[in-house]
């Protein structure tokens, strides 16, 4: 983890509104054996609905932190006041271009969203289900044949999620390990690894786009280079911005979700048994685990001065809406820190609120449900392997580094 150079708190932030909590080095956030970083964020619900956290981004910037789910909805449903234009990926290279549609605001955002939505709609995802199930079964059978223990992250969660995603993009599986390394360097690397990975990914996407332009096939990049917005073909930067987003968005998040879920089930044998005995409960259970173990925070930039629940947000301020915080809001979830796999009323925000709702949410949900179904069907009662400890971490994207399970 790189060190964060703290910037001074802006003068307009009243001292009594500064809070000590952040997602990077508050208790439970740094890499922790047997940790539970999402649960550790729930501490903010003892405090006010909004506070200022002086170092709450990867590059050490301060953000306002919105703790209540209903206030996060207000922020994320109002892109005119709270903009997504941040160029996170490009800024690692000292450049300024948006990942699309993530870092565009309406009305531009809607044009690209409408182009991409049909590719990942709930009905389209149903057509991918057989391939998803076969892939999970193949990987898990291989694990079961090899012994009575494995590292879920490297042996199942990553190869599964990444394979499905590459299939969606129309990319070959034989470079899977390489792609996972790029994503790891980009999301979790140091100041040298991140720009290097970003450049590698850009070169790969640009090259693929050039190939598909010359000779289109039936895949995502061919679709993109032939697509139009406002009656014109997408330009090179738009193709790059979209390709890069889809490449990085699918690599890490589903694998992390499967890791957190199997970690929970390994530690809670009664719940594991419940789902094993009655797999029809998995759909609802997966929603509850999405609520309890989401992995991302949304950051918005204020486009104007606004007083928000008594806080003087000024134009240019960052506003953080962390999914794991909203999902532990006691005003919206009864006993939020209890995990109830049969929870019915569960309008969690694992995929965010507002126009930037995760484009891949329907595919992600199917992968998680099918992954858990196949795992429980093919692997007997499992636990954390004695002498090992999964290392969890908070930060920009929450995750779990290793998960050694044992079913001997």
């Amino acid at each position, binding site marked *: 983890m790189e060190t964060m150079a703290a910037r001074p708190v802006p003068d307009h932030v009243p001292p009594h509104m500064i809070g000590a909590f952040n997602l990077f080095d508050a208790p439970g956030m740094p890499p922790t054996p047997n940790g539970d970083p999402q649960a550790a964020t729930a501490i903010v619900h003892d405090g006010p609905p909004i506070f200022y956290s002086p170092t709450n981004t990867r590059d050490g910037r301060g953000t306002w932190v919105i703790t209540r789910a209903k206030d996060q909805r207000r922020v994320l449903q109002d892109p005119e006041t709270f903009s997504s234009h941040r160029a996170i990926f490009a800024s690692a290279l000292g450049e300024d271009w948006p990942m699309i549609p993530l870092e565009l605001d309406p009305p531009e955002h809607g044009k690209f969203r409408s182009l991409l*939505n*049909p590719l990942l709609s709930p*009905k389209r995802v149903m057509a991918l289900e057989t391939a998803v199930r076969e892939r999970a079964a193949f990987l898990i059978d291989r694990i079961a044949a090899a012994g009575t223990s494995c590292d879920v992250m490297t042996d199942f969660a990553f190869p599964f999620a990444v394979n499905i995603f590459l299939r969606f993009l129309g990319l070959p599986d034989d470079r899977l390990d390489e792609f996972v390394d790029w994503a790891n360097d980009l999301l979790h690397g140091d100041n040298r690894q991140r720009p290097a990975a970003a450049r590698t990914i850009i070169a790969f996407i640009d090259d693929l786009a050039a190939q598909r332009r010359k000779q289109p096939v039936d895949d995502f990049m061919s679709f993109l280079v032939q697509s139009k917005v406002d009656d014109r073909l997408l330009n090179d930067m738009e193709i790059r911005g979209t390709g890069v987003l889809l490449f990085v968005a699918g690599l890490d998040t589903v694998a992390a979700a499967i890791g957190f879920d199997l970690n929970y089930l390994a530690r809670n044998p009664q719940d594991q048994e419940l789902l094993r005995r009655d797999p029809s409960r998995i759909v609802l259970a997966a929603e509850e685990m999405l609520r309890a173990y989401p992995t991302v925070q949304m950051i918005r930039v204020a486009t104007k001065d606004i007083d928000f629940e008594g806080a003087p947000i000024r134009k240019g301020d960052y506003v953080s809406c962390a999914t794991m915080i909203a999902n532990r809001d006691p005003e919206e979830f009864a006993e939020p820190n209890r995990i109830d796999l049969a929870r019915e009323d569960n309008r969690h925000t694992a995929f965010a609120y507002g126009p930037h709702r995760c484009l891949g949410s329907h595919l992600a949900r199917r992968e998680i449900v099918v992954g858990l179904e196949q795992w429980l069907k093919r692997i007997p009662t499992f636990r954390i392997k004695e002498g090992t400890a999964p290392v969890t971490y908070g930060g920009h994207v929450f995750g779990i580094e290793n998960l050694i399970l044992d079913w001997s």
Partner: protein
Amino acid sequence: MKIIVHKEKCQGHARCWAMAPQIFDLDDEGYIMPGDIDVAEEDERLAWKGAKSCPERALEIQQ
């Protein structure tokens, strides 16, 4: 019972459709079709659950 559809608030989570696909119809992008929904008496419980599943609060129940 009637479901008032606030189409402009729909962001395509499709939780209503997951709950009751026969009541909540989606367009090709996966967002709710415009227009309020008249619910048959036998579908009321399911429609209620579907409307209550919307993370954006785009579906309003009118008794």
